[in-house]
C-alpha cells in the first residue's frame, strides 16, 4: 500500500541539505550571468553530477543511488528553491528510465553506469515535431531498416539539451501509419549516439529564458540496429510509461520555484515600508501571497501522492498529471504575487524575480500543455468523451 509521509526522513533531510550546500555556491549572479548570455550552467551541472545527484534514480547495480522518485523530486525542488534552474539537467535523471525499463541487458550494462557517472549525458528526447506537437502518433520522422542499420529522415523541434548530450532518445515511425492496426503502433524508440553523427543537424533556438532547445534535422542519418530499444513498433507505449516520472519531477521543479517566490515575496513585503507601514500589512499584497502558499502546499500534497504511488509501483497517471498541473499553476501564481509585491524591482534583473518568472512559466506549456492535462483528466479520470 502506498502511503504519503508528511515529514522528510533523516536521509531525505540530509539529501536536501547536500543539494542546498552545492546550490549555495551558485548564487543569483551565476544564473543571471548565464541568462544574459544564454549559456548552459556547465559548472553547476558537472558539480551536481559528480556529487551523484543526477544518478539518484539509476539502480545501484548500474552505479546509481537506487532512490525513489520522491527523492529525485526533492533534489530538483531544492535546486529551484535555491534560485537555480533544474530544467538544465533534470532530464539526465529520468530519460534513462526508458532504457532501464525496456532496454536489453547489454544496453543497460553499456550505458547506465556511464550515465550514472556523467561520462555520458543522456538528456535529450526527440519526440516533438513541427507538424505534430502533442499529437505524437502523427509524427513524420521515419526510421527505415536497411540491412544492419536504420536510416532516419525528418525534423524535430523544441528538443532540449541536445548540445549538452552525448546520447539522445529518438521516437520515429518505423511502419507507415496506413499499415498499422492502431495509429499508436509502428513507432519505435532509439538510443542514438549523436556525437559526430553524419547527416544530423542541430539549430539552437533562442528562447524567452535561458533554456537550451533546438530544431533538429535528420538527412539520411544512419544508425546501427543496436540503437533500437525493445521491440520495433512498440515505441509509443514505451514512452508513455516514462511520462509519469517526468510529470512528477517537473511538478517538483515548479514546487521549488513556488517556494522561492513565496519566500522572496514574504521577505520583501515585510520590510518594504510605504505609507508608513510594511506593504505586507495590506490585504491586497498579503492575500495574494497567502493564496499562492495555499496552492503550493496543495500541489505538494498531490506531488507527494503521485510520488508515493509511483514508488509503490501503483498506477499514478492521473495523480502525476494533476501534480504537474497544480505545481505549474502554483508556481505561476506565486510568481505573479512575487512580481506584483516587488513593483518595479520585480522587473529589475538583479532581483532574480523576473528571471524566475520567465523560467517558471515554461511548465504550464511543457513537457505537456496544462490544457492537455485537463483533457487527460476529463477523458481518463472522469470517463468523459475525448475532447480533442
Amino acid at each position, binding site marked *: 500500500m502506498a502511503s504519503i509521509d508528511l515529514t522528510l526522513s*533523516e536521509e531525505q*533531510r*540530509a539529501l536536501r*541539505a*547536500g543539494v542546498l*550546500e552545492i546550490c549555495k555556491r551558485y548564487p543569483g549572479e551565476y544564473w543571471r550571468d548565464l541568462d544574459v548570455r544564454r549559456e548552459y550552467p556547465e559548472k553547476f551541472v558537472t558539480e551536481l553530477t559528480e*556529487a551523484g545527484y543526477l544518478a539518484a534514480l539509476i539502480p545501484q547495480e548500474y552505479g546509481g543511488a537506487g532512490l525513489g522518485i520522491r527523492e529525485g523530486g526533492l533534489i530538483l525542488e531544492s535546486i529551484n528553491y535555491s534560485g537555480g534552474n533544474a530544467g538544465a539537467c533534470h532530464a539526465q535523471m529520468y530519460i534513462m528510465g526508458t532504457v532501464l525499463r525496456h532496454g536489453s541487458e547489454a544496453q543497460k550494462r553499456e550505458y547506465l553506469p556511464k550515465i550514472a557517472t556523467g561520462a555520458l549525458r543522456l538528456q535529450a528526447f526527440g519526440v516533438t515535431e513541427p507538424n505534430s506537437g502533442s499529437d505524437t502518433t502523427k509524427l513524420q520522422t521515419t526510421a527505415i531498416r536497411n540491412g544492419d542499420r536504420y536510416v532516419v529522415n525528418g525534423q524535430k523541434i523544441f528538443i532540449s539539451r541536445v548540445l549538452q548530450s552525448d546520447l539522445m532518445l529518438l521516437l520515429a515511425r518505423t511502419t507507415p501509419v496506413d499499415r498499422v492496426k492502431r495509429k499508436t503502433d509502428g513507432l519505435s524508440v532509439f538510443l542514438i549516439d549523436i556525437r559526430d553523427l553524419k547527416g544530423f543537424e542541430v539549430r539552437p533556438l533562442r528562447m524567452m529564458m535561458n533554456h537550451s532547445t533546438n530544431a533538429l534535422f535528420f538527412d539520411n542519418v544512419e544508425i546501427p540496429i543496436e540503437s533500437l530499444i525493445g521491440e520495433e513498433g512498440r515505441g509509443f507505449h514505451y514512452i508513455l510509461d516514462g511520462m509519469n516520472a517526468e510529470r512528477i519531477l517537473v511538478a517538483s521543479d515548479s514546487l521549488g520555484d513556488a517556494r522561492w517566490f513565496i519566500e522572496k515575496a514574504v521577505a520583501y513585503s515585510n520590510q518594504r515600508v510605504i505609507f508608513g507601514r510594511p506593504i505586507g500589512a495590506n490585504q491586497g499584497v498579503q492575500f495574494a501571497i497567502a493564496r499562492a502558499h495555499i496552492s503550493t502546499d496543495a500541489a505538494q500534497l498531490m506531488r507527494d501522492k503521485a510520488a508515493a504511488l509511483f514508488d509503490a509501483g501503483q498506477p499514478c497517471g492521473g495523480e502525476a498529471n494533476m501534480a504537474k498541473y497544480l505545481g505549474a499553476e502554483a508556481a505561476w501564481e506565486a510568481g505573479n504575487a512575487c512580481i506584483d509585491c516587488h513593483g518595479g524591482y520585480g522587473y529589475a534583473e538583479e532581483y532574480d524575480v523576473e528571471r524566475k518568472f520567465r523560467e517558471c512559466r515554461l511548465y504550464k506549456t511543457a513537457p505537456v500543455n496544462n490544457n492537455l492535462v485537463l483533457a487527460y483528466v476529463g477523458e481518463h479520470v472522469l470517463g468523459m468523451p475525448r475532447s480533442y
Partner: protein
Amino acid sequence: MKILVTVKQVPDTATQVKIAPDGKTIDPTGITWIVSPYDEFAVEEALRIKEKRGQGEVVAVSLGPDRVKEALRSCLAMGCDRAIHLNDPVWATADTLATAKALAAAIKQEGPQLVLCGRQAIDDDMGAVTAQLAELLGWPCAYWIMEEAIDADGKSVRAARQVEGGLEVFDLPLPAILAAQKGLNEPRYPTLKGIMGAKKKEIRDVKAADLGWASEPPQLSIVGLQALPPRPPGRIIAGDVPTAVKELVRALREDAKAI
C-alpha cells in the same frame, strides 16, 4: 593514524534565534540544526590527513541530545568512519568544562594520535573546550590553525596559527590538539553516495556511566539571555548638499566620533 574530531550541533546561521520563556535558553522551535562551520573545517582536515597518509581512521564525537545524531550523520556522509554520541540527560546542563571532561574521557578511551576541533562553536562563541581538553589530557594544543603538516613517521605536527599580519608556526609532539580556523581548507559537501553510505556507519551511544563520569555541579551557570536592543532609526540630514555634507561631517566627528 586515528584522528578524533569534536563537533557541535548549532542553529543554522540563518535562524532567527528566539529566547525561550525561561529567559535562560533559546526556543528550539523551527530551528534548523547544522554542524558548526569551524568544526566542518576540522572534519575536512582530518579526512585530508587520512587521505594523504593513505590509511587511518576518522572518528567524529559530539555531546548533546538525540537531535545531534543528524549532525554526526552528516560528518559520516562527508567521510568520517564512525561516530560517538555522548548522549545522557545528565549532560543537559553541561557547561564547557563538563563538556570537556566528558569529551576527554571519551578521547582517553579511544586513544587517538590527533584531536581536531573547530576554533569555537558559532552558537555561544565560547571557544573554551579545546583548551580545556588540552589541559585535562595534558596534551599540547594550538588554536586558530591555518595550516598543518604531520611528519612522515606520525610523531609530531607542524601547525601554523593565524596572528595579526602573519602566521606563527609551532612544532607539537603527538598526541596533540588543534583548533581549526576558517581558511584551513574548503570543506567538501557530502555526495549522494556519502549520504547513502552514512546510513550503514556506526554511531555509538555513550552514557555518562560508560565513561565513569561523575556528575558535578556546573562551574558556569547562565543567569539570563538578553536580545540585542533594536537598532536605533537612521537619521536623514536635510538641506542642500553643501550644508548637509558639513552637518554629516560634524555629526560623524562629534556625535558618532567615527572620524
